[in-house]
């Protein structure tokens, strides 16, 4: 029998890399915690010295001010908390619409920048340079004061009959409201859609097996378009009624309206962010090896198919991470709404901070809210990123 092996000499803790790693992390954490405690202590003592204090529960007091555009129910007798929620709803709405529109525009511009058409690529390059290199606030103010407010006044609106109005206060369109027979109409449209989808699915299955079925697809389309039309004509009561905008003493009432403030904010955000997204998309497309495009063309694919099926899926790997940053920028830039009077979260919070005399608490609350919005966006884009990455065996 061999002698049992001697135990290896163990490294002393101060040389053991595992111990050092943990100790370093604990030390950094301690430094951060001490710094935070000192800063908070400094804040509290400075506030006490000036006679200021945190008033817990100030969010539950009556707001007393009116908000112009609210997605939720709100009146001056509601609490400050309700006002903040209204602002948050507006911010989320602007962010979602802004992200969607700027992505679409940015992708189109990025592809156009690489076009063989000299005029198109030069124009796109000029657009990108202009909108990337000027401050967003300046663009927003120019759009609002020099473009939207120069439209004709309310009494002289540009009108399409009695339906749509365009003036300096915004666009007013008819609002569709459910009519008396809306239930029946919705049921018919729903059934037709399901049937059309089923037919389309069958046609796709047959195509995979190599059998063509143009008749099925045509039938599906016919169902989708024809059934609602027939239903509309045959139903005695109108399924959808339009609420038209009416000119009151000062403003247009009724209908759906998009105010100039919201329009200016959205347009400015979309134009600005799409310029950055265009460059990101262009970079992503150029990062795909040139051989991919040449091989696809050699196989006889059209230019559009090359882009859609070969180049862009591979470019997405490179595009998605910087795209996340641009989305976060857009969400935070939406706080410029205060410059044009649109009641977003930041605008409402400055009013509240002033009226309650609690600027520190309100600003901290707003910062945490934007942080949560950003983290949610980053998490969603993280999922998208994982799907776009190379799957290796």
């Amino acid at each position, binding site marked *: 029998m061999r002698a049992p092996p001697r135990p290896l000499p163990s490294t002393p803790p101060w040389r053991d890399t595992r111990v050092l790693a943990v100790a370093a992390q604990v030390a950094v954490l301690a430094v951060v915690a001490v710094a935070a405690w000192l800063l908070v202590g400094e804040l509290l003592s400075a506030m006490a010295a000036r006679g200021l204090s945190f008033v817990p529960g100030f969010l539950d007091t009556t707001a*007393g001010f*009116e908000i112009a555009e609210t997605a939720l129910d709100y009146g001056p007798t509601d609490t400050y908390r309700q006002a903040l929620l209204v602002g948050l709803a507006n911010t989320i709405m602007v962010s979602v619409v802004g992200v969607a529109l700027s992505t679409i525009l940015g992708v189109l511009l990025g592809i156009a920048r690489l076009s063989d058409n000299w005029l198109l690529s030069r124009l796109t390059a000029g657009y990108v340079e202009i909108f990337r290199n000027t401050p967003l606030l300046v663009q927003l103010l120019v759009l609002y004061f020099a473009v939207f407010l120069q439209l004709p006044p309310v009494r002289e609106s540009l009108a399409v009959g009695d339906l749509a109005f365009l003036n300096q206060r915004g666009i007013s369109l008819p609002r569709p409201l459910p009519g008396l027979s809306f239930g029946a109409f919705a049921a018919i449209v729903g059934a037709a859609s399901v049937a059309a989808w089923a037919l389309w699915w069958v046609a796709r299955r047959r195509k995979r097996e190599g059998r063509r079925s143009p008749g099925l697809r045509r039938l599906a389309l016919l169902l989708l378009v024809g059934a609602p039309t027939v239903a509309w004509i045959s139903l005695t009561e109108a399924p959808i009624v339009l609420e038209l905008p009416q000119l009151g003493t000062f403003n247009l009432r009724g209908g759906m309206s998009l105010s100039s403030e919201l329009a200016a904010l959205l347009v400015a955000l979309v134009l600005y962010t799409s310029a950055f997204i265009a460059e990101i998309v262009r970079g992503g497309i150029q990062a795909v090896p040139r051989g991919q495009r040449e091989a696809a063309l050699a196989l006889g694919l059209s230019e559009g198919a090359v882009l859609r099926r070969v180049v862009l899926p591979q470019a997405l790997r490179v595009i998605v991470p910087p795209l996340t940053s641009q989305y976060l920028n857009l969400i935070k830039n939406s706080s410029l709404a205060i410059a044009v009077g649109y009641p977003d979260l930041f*605008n409402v919070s400055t009013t509240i901070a002033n009226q309650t005399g609690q600027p520190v608490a309100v600003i901290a609350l707003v910062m945490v809210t934007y942080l949560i919005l950003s983290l949610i966006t980053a998490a969603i884009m993280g999922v998208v990123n994982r799907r776009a990455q190379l799957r290796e065996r």
Partner: protein
Amino acid sequence: MRRSAALVAITAVLLTAPAAVAQSPTPTPEITPPPAPTGVLAAVQQRGQLICGVNGALPGFSVLDEASGTYTGFDADFCRAIAAAVLGDAAAVEFRPLTAAQRGPALQTGEVDVLIRNTTWTVGRDATWGLFAPTTFYDGQAIMVRSDLGVATVEELAGATICVQSGTTTELNLTDAFRARGLEFTPLVFADIDPTYAAYAEGRCDAVTSDRSQLASRRTTLADPTAHVLLDEVLSKEPLGPVVPLNDDQWFNVVKWVVFSTVEAEEQGITAENVASMVGGENPVTRRLLGDEGDLGQALALSNDWVVNVIGSVGNYGEIYDRNLGPETPFAIERGLNALWTDGGLLYAPPYR
């Protein structure tokens, strides 16, 4: 021997008496030393400059004058008055333009020593922003509309869009006024004063609301001042005055009495021109006010002749008013409530004694 002993005893007593008096707590007459400057007053004197928060975009109250390169106006002159009282130099002021939303935190955090920015005195602000010195301008809230709308009362503005600035009492009062009348309106809230009036001038809003003095002042900057009219209705009381940070009684007293001194000077007929000649006069009231008698200036931790410095550099209340808002100016606002109590107004300075 006895005589020399008595002589020695008397000499000893005489020599030791001062020492005895100095060591024993004999009751001397009460002489309280003048209070030393503390807090904001000490900081201002040490810095050699007063930091004054102003509007900066309100002609007549505080606006940057291109000709002189400095801020002029009613509020700016009161900043200079405080600087003259504390530092002896009316020009030792650093003006900080602040928006309506910035002014509260700027004062709370000590970024400005005093806030003279057409700020309305309310109980909420008294408790949270700072202490309000006596009102320098009694004002009220009004609404400005274009004359061609043919609107004369608030009721006719039902359903209108009204421009207003964020973080002001006007925003709340407007909501209250329309709620009380059961009418609807759409507010358009801006953070800065310039976009508010720009949007109104472009026609985005049907009306704009603020203090009557501010509306009159900004109307002069519009393209055609005669095309705009101020409705007669007064929506609320707006007493405007200087504000100082909380928890500093000495500084509060200084600012308070600077304001009162200008009012008292007007009541006594002291002007910038005749103040030098009135020093050393016979009237006991003016003698006390100008520091010829008593140590009232030192009780405030200022020099005794601080009122002479104030009146000599900016004049009395009437002169400040006439120079900035009087009949010779484009605003020509009547004194109204801002006259002395002897003329039927509300300006009343407590006795300086």
